[in-house]
């Protein structure tokens, strides 16, 4: 079936000729060049997303005082930790044969710590405070905005992953999605004045998770090589 199509009676390139051609085409391709591509892509996507955040939302009104509160930093650590986990997994899953366990481990660790803190905060709160702790006052747009702001990062990240050599396409797509969602959530955290950890865990977490799912779905069609 395949060898049925040779055009104008010519045979395809022989393997020896191909090896000659490839060897003649050799230019230095250090392993660091790949990491630079990844770093540039995610940095560029994040810059676009940050600009969009400033344009759409601006900084949170109480920015100056918020910086001094531990809640602000704990809230930022959650997406920042997941972004780190996602980026480690992206780097590993883009290289054939490299184990990605470190990325998964960091991700699970960050989620476990955050979930524990959220549960503690819920356990110590009076019953009438549970609802605001869980639902906040921005639940109608928080998750959607995180996903929207993740799109430029996701696009740049998928582009970078296409330059790599992922062999598990769904996982590689999911890692790009989680990294993009988490970076976007970290950027969004600067505009959002919610401080309840249960809220952040649930609704930031949902945005990051949904971006991971989107990446998993698009992994096969977009990353095949």
């Amino acid at each position, binding site marked *: 079936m395949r060898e049925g199509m040779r055009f104008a009676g010519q045979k395809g390139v022989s393997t020896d000729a191909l090896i000659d051609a490839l060897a003649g085409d*050799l230019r230095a391709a250090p392993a660091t060049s790949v990491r630079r591509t990844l770093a540039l892509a995610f940095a560029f996507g994040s810059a676009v997303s940050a600009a969009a955040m400033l344009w759409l939302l601006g900084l949170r009104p109480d920015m100056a005082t918020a910086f001094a509160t531990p809640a602000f930093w704990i809230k930022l650590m959650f997406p920042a930790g997941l972004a780190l986990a996602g980026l480690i997994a992206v780097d590993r899953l883009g290289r054939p044969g490299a184990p990605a366990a470190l990325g998964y481990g960091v991700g699970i660790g960050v989620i476990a710590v955050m979930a524990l803190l959220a549960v503690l905060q819920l356990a110590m709160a009076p019953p009438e405070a549970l609802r605001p702790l869980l639902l906040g006052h921005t639940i109608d747009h928080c998750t959607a905005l995180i996903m929207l702001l993740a799109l430029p990062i996701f696009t740049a990240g998928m582009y970078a992953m296409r330059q790599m050599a992922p062999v598990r396409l769904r996982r590689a797509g999911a890692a790009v999605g989680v990294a993009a969602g988490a970076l976007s959530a970290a950027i969004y955290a600067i505009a959002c004045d919610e401080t309840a950890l249960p809220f952040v865990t649930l609704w930031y977490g949902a945005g990051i998770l949904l971006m991971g799912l989107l990446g998993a779905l698009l992994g096969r069609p977009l990353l095949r090589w």
Partner: protein
Amino acid sequence: MSVPNPPLDALMIAAQSGDEAAYRTLLKALSSALRGYFARRLGGDAAVEDLVQDTLIAIHERRATYDPQRPFAAWFFAIARYKLVDHLRAARRSATTPVEDIEDMAGADEELSTAARLDLERLLDALPQRSRDIVRTVKIEGESVAEAAQRSGLSPIAIRVLLHRAVKAMSAKAGNSRS
């Protein structure tokens, strides 16, 4: 490198820094490893040599994704396995071509030359502009690779690789709709 037969890891690291002789040795060794690997899994299938070439091109284009800190064999066989699975998946897809296509094909036999020309045009149209021009001039009009290289400003190697891919893409497409 005084060892007569340097390990593949060392060859690959040398290749990544631009050592052409090491790279040639490496590709030769890899091509026979790949031939064995694919032949064991596909039997005497004619696709073996195509897969070997495809995988060599993939290794060439993705060579920067090899991390010198890690074992080369893991990187290499992960790529070989990926290419094998990708091939099997594509083969299964084209094996389940709907019946209408086969009937189309049976009916088309009478006007073979027109049909072949139309097919060729259709397949060519699906290629990117640059590849289409190269296939047209080299494979159909019979220009040499060197001439095509000079005219297009691409290296002869780039022309060969583009040709290889274009012919494969067209065969795959032809296989999909006419098998």
